[in-house]
């Protein structure tokens, strides 16, 4: 049986729902946003963009967001990589840790932020414990600054980075490490000379995904940071434009600038990936 009628393959029509969904849910809103951003309430078509890059309160949000999201991403990768490497051999321990790490991912940023608010507040468990142990004399001011936002992004981003890297590490043929060992490579040299080069593509992909998540930080920046000051991230600026000033055109412009910055970082990362070996990570027939 086939779907060909009069020389035309009607099975192509099966693509229609998908194409429609992409058009309606992505292309149309995106195009609408682009057009909207070019029609400011006053001034020429580029007035929104000109205003964004003229007002420190606006353009500084790019730096603020990058200063939070880039270190978080790098930190997540730096702790996830050795963990994934050490747990590369399938074991009960590996499965338990992987399962435990899925939990914070499923909680979502708001719930994590709520939990941290209670736990890290001046009267929270953390400060009370330190006070009772006599380690501090005053409650530590942990909340409402970049540190708390960074911490929440580690809690939600690290499991994601770990699970992704674990799948990349376990995809590398274990006999390569063994071959390196018999050739005189210490465990550190096996990692540096064999595993790391083969992991570069996976590291870059993980970096991009973790970074994009962190760059769009919004709930924890509001709840845990100081949204008016040190954690005034770019998504917050877009939110203010849309729902406090009711300037949808400006909000669209900020959203597009946000996308452009993300894209720039991701393209930079992918350029690094191009330079690395990207073939199969096995040592021959298996």
């Amino acid at each position, binding site marked *: 049986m086939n779907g060909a009628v009069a020389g035309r393959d009607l099975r192509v029509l099966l693509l229609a729902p998908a194409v429609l969904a992409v058009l309606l849910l992505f292309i149309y809103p995106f195009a609408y946003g682009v057009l909207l951003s070019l029609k400011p309430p006053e001034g020429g078509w580029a007035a929104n963009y000109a205003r964004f890059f003229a007002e420190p309160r606006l353009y500084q949000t790019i730096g603020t967001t990058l200063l939070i999201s880039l270190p978080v991403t790098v930190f997540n990768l730096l702790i996830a990589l050795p963990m994934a490497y050490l747990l590369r051999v399938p074991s009960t321990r590996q499965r338990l840790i992987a399962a435990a790490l899925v939990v914070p991912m499923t909680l979502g940023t708001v719930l994590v932020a709520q939990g941290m608010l209670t736990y890290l507040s001046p009267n929270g468990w953390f400060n009370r414990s330190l006070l009772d142990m006599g380690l501090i004399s005053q409650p530590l001011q942990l909340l409402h600054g970049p540190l708390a936002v960074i911490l929440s992004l580690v809690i939600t981003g690290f499991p994601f980075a770990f699970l992704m890297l674990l799948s990349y590490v376990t995809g590398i*043929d274990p*006999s*390569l490490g*063994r*071959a*390196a*060992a*018999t*050739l*005189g*490579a*210490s465990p550190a*040299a096996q990692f540096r*000379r*064999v595993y790391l*080069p*083969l992991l570069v593509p996976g590291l870059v992909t993980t970096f991009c995904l973790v970074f994009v998540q962190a760059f769009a930080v919004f709930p924890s920046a509001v709840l845990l940071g100081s949204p008016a000051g040190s954690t005034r991230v770019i998504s917050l600026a877009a939110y203010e434009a849309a729902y406090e000033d009711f300037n949808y055109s400006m909000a669209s412009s900020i959203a597009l600038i946000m996308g452009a910055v993300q894209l720039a970082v991701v393209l930079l990362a992918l350029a690094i990936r191009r330079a*690395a*070996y990207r*073939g*199969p*990570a*096995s*040592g*021959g*027939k*298996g």
Partner: protein
Amino acid sequence: MRKFQSLQLDRVALRFGGFKALDDFSLTIRAGEFVSLLGPSGCGKSTALNCLSGLLQVSSGSIMLDDKRIDILPPERRGFGMVFQNYALFPHLSVRRNVAFGLEMRKVPKAEVEQRVERALATVRLGNQIDKLPGQLSGGQQQRVAIARAVAIEPPLVLMDEPLSNLDAKLRLELRHEIKRLHHALGLTTIYVTHDQDEALSLSDRIVVMRDGRIQQQGTPETLYNAPDNLYVARFMGYRNAFAVRMDGPCALVGEGIGAMRFDGLDLPAGGAAQSLAFRPDDVKLAASGIAAEVAQVEYCGQLWLVDLRTADGTHVTMETHERVTMGQRVQFHVAPERIRLFADAFVPEAG
């Protein structure tokens, strides 16, 4: 080559929980020998090899290289070259960098590294593929690179773990030849793991047949081929005709009643009582008078026919013959008594 006199494994054992992957394994290997560990999968041959390489830690026993105890060293400090079944070439490194890997780990000066890499690749006849990635080479070429990589470090011992198993029949034969040539040309000491008796017979100075983590028999290929100690070794050496046997005085009986096969003038195994008997298909000869049988199946194998004979009581006997027979033909066959081996171990039907 780093010089040594002998490598001694003394009662080496490896246990995983209650399972003995290797038990009471004692073996002495002299410099320059080619020793094969032969057995089916799960017999402990690869385990023994990995204990030697250091990729597995022995549970008890010792491994001595001359008077140096090596079983306590990690693999990177033993310095044995290893060749893997799946080649295990570093896919991101060129052929040159793969072969140079072990030398770089040893901090050999750069100029010398280049020289030794080129020499090693020339030995395996791959001098013209030096800047390719492993993925651009055929399976046979990849395994030759892996061999070059293992011998470039001039190890006292080269360990090969079923290096030919992933190759097709023709390449397997070619590379087998190559391995033998390299072993002699480079004066290597090689330990070779295989489940293929042809490989073991053609390559080895000595074969060690293993079963359930233990050594069953060791000796020269001729010894094992002509005088296997037990039925298990015999089957591995191509004794395809194996039967339970009943002794009637000096006469061995296979089967029951009037259709039983009778064999006279056999040598009894040490200890006396024989429970099984085996002979090889090429020792079954068509004769004017002998055991009567019907030809049940004929397979043409080029230079000979592999014939399945069925005797009066339905027992199957496999024969290799140069004479042409046809299915259904009634024949008589004979096996020379000196070609038949009696064993003290009980007959067990072959699994699979």
